[in-house]
């Protein structure tokens, strides 16, 4: 009985030690995570007492009027920031992330039109530019990684509301053939040469934004371009080729960004083209080449057009999501 009575205080001590140890671990974990959470800067210094709740070292902002199809998806409208200097020059009045808002709708303007200002949607031959701003929240070197994702919806998707709380049931899985075709037909680029009409620096999944010595509360403009080529000749044939000239067309994709057989991207309906690589190599040389095969040219055009038809028939809406993460930043 005596031994049993002595054991009880021993257990109590153990419980206290264990709870204390767990509490210490929790505090330690909390301090580390809140550092990242509140400051978003791996190089910030100071004691735990000095940590304050601020937004990240950057925010994203867009300007312009709302898009026609904003009511189809669940993005935050964001907040308005005023008197933000644009790259040291003018002043913009953007709708921006920040103060707890991490996700905003991409406001549209006349020259950054994903096609939805007119309400006509996009189709082969459509193109446009999407502009947004990276706002530095402190004097720092910014090195951001943007991932570009698309979500496809069937034509049955409808504006959200009481009768339609979400469109998730209308999302087309990435594994579907039509989803891969969209990635191969609606192409995104970092650069566009207005003089030549040629797009370059293709964005397949991510791109970086680097700005050394970024100044606090300054907005840095970023443009990305998209194009849905009307015919595959615009990707393959050499500029000035008779077949392009005959149709009043130009090559619009830089040679380094020409169509390639990448996984996750499809360019041709059914992809059952015998000897696809040889076929592409043959047509790419142009119609003036002695080995050029009109059969190859016809097959590629037909399969590209059939793919466009499939995209237009099976998809109803495309949602573009640009997600920014800090890849590196440092205080100046």
């Amino acid at each position, binding site marked *: 009985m005596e031994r*049993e009575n002595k054991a009880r205080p021993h257990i109590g001590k153990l419980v206290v030690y264990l*709870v204390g140890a767990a509490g210490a671990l929790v505090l330690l974990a909390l301090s580390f995570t809140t550092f*990242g959470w509140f400051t978003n800067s791996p190089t910030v210094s100071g004691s735990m007492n000095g940590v304050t709740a601020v937004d990240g070292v950057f925010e*994203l902002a867009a300007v312009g009027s709302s898009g026609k199809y904003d009511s189809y998806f669940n993005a935050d409208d964001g907040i308005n920031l005023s008197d933000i200097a644009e790259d040291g020059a003018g002043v913009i009045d953007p709708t921006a992330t920040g103060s707890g808002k991490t996700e905003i709708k991409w406001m549209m303007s006349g020259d950054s039109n994903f096609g939805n200002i007119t309400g006509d*949607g996009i189709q082969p031959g459509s193109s446009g530019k999407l502009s*947004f701003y990276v706002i530095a929240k402190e004097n720092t070197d910014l090195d951001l990684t943007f991932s570009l994702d698309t979500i*496809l919806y069937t034509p049955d998707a409808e504006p959200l509301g009481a009768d339609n709380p979400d469109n998730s049931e209308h999302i087309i899985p990435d594994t579907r053939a039509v989803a891969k075709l969209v990635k191969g037909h609606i192409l995104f680029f970092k650069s566009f040469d207005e003089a030549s009409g040629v797009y370059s620096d293709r964005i397949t999944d991510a791109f970086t934004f680097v700005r050394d010595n970024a100044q606090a509360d300054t907005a840095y403009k970023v443009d990305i371009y998209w194009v849905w080529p009307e015919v595959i000749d615009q990707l393959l044939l050499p500029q000035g080729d008779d077949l392009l000239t005959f*149709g009043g067309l130009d090559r619009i994709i830089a040679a380094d960004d020409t169509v390639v057989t990448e996984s996750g991207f499809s360019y041709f309906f059914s992809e059952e083209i015998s000897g696809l690589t040889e076929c592409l190599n043959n047509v790419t040389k142009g119609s003036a080449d002695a080995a050029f095969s009109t*059969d190859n040219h016809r097959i590629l055009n037909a399969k590209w057009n059939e793919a466009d038809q499939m995209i237009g028939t099976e998809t*109803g809406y495309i949602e573009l999501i640009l997600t920014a993460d800090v890849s590196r930043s440092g205080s100046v």
Partner: protein
Amino acid sequence: MWGIAVKNKKVRLKRKALLITAISLTAAFVLSTTVYAWFTNQRRLETMTKISSPSSLYIGAGAKEDSANIDMGGIDVTDATGKKDFVFCVYSDETVGNYKLQLAHTTNIDFTYTIFRATESDTALITNDMILYVDESGVSHYYAKDGTALPGGYLNLGGDGKTANGTLHDKSYDGYDLVQKNAEPLYWQNRDPITHDQSMRSFVDYYILEVSWNSSEVSNNKETDMVYLTAGMV
């Protein structure tokens, strides 16, 4: 003694249970807060737009019927008028900016092909020079040539003014050279794109293909030609 051993074992079990619970709770907390922090560090822009079907351009017969109803068989070259007219249309149920008409044909028979814009006439205003098209339901439609011939020209007309030169031979036959000269197709294209206002959601443009001949140069001898009509957006 046996009783004390049992109690000690229970104590060890409790210690283990407490230790496991504390570690699990800590790990769960660390994991959840880290993931939450990761998500809240991200910033995101989203936009959405509609995907439209590619605009389709169709060639049809009169009354916007299927092109299978354009029947050019049975031209009787003893017809004193020296010509025969065929109604066809170009239409779309979507917005189409500009398009061009193209005609390709072989040259076995010495026919002249001319394309005119046309308008469908009110039945109360029918005249003898209008072209009759009877639709699949047996209803008669009358079309009148609208002005002069559509401006355009052959892309590969030879020096004789009748057959094709070799400039587009490879486009037709690749490297195959054993082609009879009248089997070399002539390619004709109208000069100026036919334009439609982008606000037009649909349209039907009627045309008349006039096939004419000089009766002294042709005869009903079962000779055949292939004739292709195409319309392409430009």
